[in-house]
């Protein structure tokens, strides 16, 4: 059978969701931000909530997320996305409100905001992209950087005596009474992406059921910051990140 006989509209089984705009993403080749954007857009399309969803973009590479997902957006000061989301959700309880934050935004400068938003049990979704490095500013050490991991500011590897220990923020969040669903996922292979999609959908559904905050961590790569190719970075993540940041649900009620 000729390829041209297969490539017909009636045979199409997968295409880009129209919720994603046609703008070419500025992310580096192989960056999981694109994959996670796509997953969120697909969940919004499946749930039919394009006109009812408000996203809060962070400071970091993902600040330009508002160019790529065709919904309403706000842009928060560094780390303050959960505070904006709190106000937005309280004023518009019929809207799906989510924040999209990296580890430099959420686990460092924004720790107080996310902790208190989760402790208050705001009915929002927090999507947390953890790539263990500050990607946008050139690959400096983040709170989540693994011990021994080389970054621009820890060229000989992170040393616990000098730099402290990596922060498992998702474990901290899971202890808070206000959260209803805390999970850690990834987006490096098809199975992981499908699991992530289920988790994001569940989180969005929870936000309408008055159950509390849903927190979805996505263990990610930063191939530019890690100085690896996209495929090598995924492998490095599987070998080094997953033993420390173990995937799975931490809390589900």
């Amino acid at each position: 059978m000729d390829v041209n006989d297969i490539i017909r509209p009636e045979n199409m089984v997968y295409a880009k969701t129209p919720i994603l705009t046609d703008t070419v993403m500025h992310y580096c080749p192989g960056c999981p931000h694109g994959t996670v954007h796509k997953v969120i857009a697909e969940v919004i399309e499946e749930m039919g909530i394009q006109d009812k969803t408000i996203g809060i973009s962070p400071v970091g590479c993902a600040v330009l997320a508002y160019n790529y997902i065709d919904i309403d957006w706000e842009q928060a000061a560094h780390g303050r996305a959960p505070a904006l989301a709190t106000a937005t959700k309280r004023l518009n309880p019929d809207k799906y409100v989510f924040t999209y934050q990296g580890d430099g935004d959420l686990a460092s400068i924004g720790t107080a905001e996310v902790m208190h938003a989760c402790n208050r049990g705001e009915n929002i979704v927090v999507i947390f992209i953890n790539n263990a490095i500050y990607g946008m500013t050139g690959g400096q050490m983040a709170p989540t950087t693994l011990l021994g991991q080389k970054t621009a500011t820890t060229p000989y590897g992170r040393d616990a005596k000098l730099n402290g220990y990596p922060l498992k923020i998702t474990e901290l969040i899971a202890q808070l009474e206000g959260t209803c669903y805390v999970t850690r996922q990834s987006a490096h292979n098809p199975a992981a992406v499908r699991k992530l999609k289920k988790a994001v959908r569940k989180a969005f559904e929870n936000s309408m059921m008055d159950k509390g905050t849903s927190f979805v961590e996505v263990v990610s790569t930063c191939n530019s910051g890690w100085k690896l190719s996209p495929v090598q970075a995924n492998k490095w993540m599987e070998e080094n990140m997953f033993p420390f940041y173990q995937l799975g649900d931490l809390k589900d009620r």
Partner: protein
Amino acid sequence: MAVKGAIVVDTDKCKGCGVCAANCPTQTIALSKQVNGKGYNFAYMENPDNCTGCTNCATVCPDAVITVYRVKI
């Protein structure tokens, strides 16, 4: 029942990261020797006969540039 598939890559937008090729279970996809307008070696079907239209490549593509087609034969 056998299935046959095919993919269409938006070669202008593809950044040639190679994640699709690494996750293709049938070794259908490879990165081309040619480059697109941005200088990236875009993905293409090197072995189109192998494709089963499983959508794994499109699922992991960070830039959503892959469209998948599948027929039962």
